[in-house]
């Protein structure tokens, strides 16, 4: 860029029209790719996959954790972060069992989620029902919307 300003010459490199076409094609492909994946579906790539929703007074975090017991989960909340970690165990079956399918996996997981606003760390409830973890986190008083009446 500095050279350009100094010598007032666009570029020293020779640009062929074919090269220009190639660049255009690349840009088109990038555009198509970004259009194909809606931004909402972009997962962090870390388990557990969560759905985060916001109500008037609470944040709701829902995650699918089939086969995980409540005492195998570790959930911690700070002012605006939520940490979920745990381990999924699959009990060993009796010996001599011949597997036809083995798609379920065991292992550890841990995840940190940034919450959109400040929360009240004393008012957090978590429940595990039918393999779905639901965490209800109350917003901090200052973050809650206040109704203001017009006189």
């Amino acid at each position, binding site marked *: 860029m500095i050279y350009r300003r100094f010598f007032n010459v666009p570029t020293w490199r020779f640009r062929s029209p074919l090269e220009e076409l190639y660049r255009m094609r690349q840009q088109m492909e990038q555009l198509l790719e970004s259009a194909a994946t809606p931004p909402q579906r972009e997962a962090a790539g870390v388990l557990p*996959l969560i759905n*985060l*929703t916001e109500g008037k007074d609470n944040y709701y975090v829902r995650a699918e954790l089939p*086969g995980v017991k409540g005492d195998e989960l570790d959930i911690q909340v700070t002012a605006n972060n939520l940490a979920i970690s745990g381990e999924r165990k699959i009990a060993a079956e009796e010996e001599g069992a011949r597997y036809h399918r083995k798609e379920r996996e*065991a292992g550890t997981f841990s995840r940190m989620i940034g919450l959109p606003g400040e929360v009240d760390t004393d008012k957090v409830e978590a429940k595990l029902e039918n*393999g*779905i973890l639901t965490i209800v986190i109350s917003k901090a008083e200052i973050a809650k919307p206040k109704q203001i009446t017009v006189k």
Partner: protein
Amino acid sequence: MADTQSNELKVREKQEVTSPAEQTMPGLIFTPAVDIFETEKEITLLADIPGVKADDLTIDIRDNTLTLSADIAPVDSTDEVDILVECESGRYYRQFTLGELINQENIDAKLNDGVLRLSLPKVEKATPKKITVKTG
């Protein structure tokens, strides 16, 4: 990091069913992940179906085809706004062909923490008869 924690779970996209039949109901359908193993006496099937209540699960055996289908109760989130959606929920559907004859009266199904455990006892075969050929 990846080397030290080798047993860390990897993220797997939920498998969406590519139309078992023409759909007349709205909503997504997923294929549950399963373990199937066989012992001398029975075939056991474990399936991950988070969000399914015992009443909403249908197990059907017909002509050597085992069909699992499950509905999930919709999440009560009327006044909630989505901030982040990473996994979608929907019904579950999967079919299996059974090779062995199954004793249909003693099928046992348990649903715990979103995992279905289905025990399919095999029909006891008649003890193989050995025929000795006498010479004489």
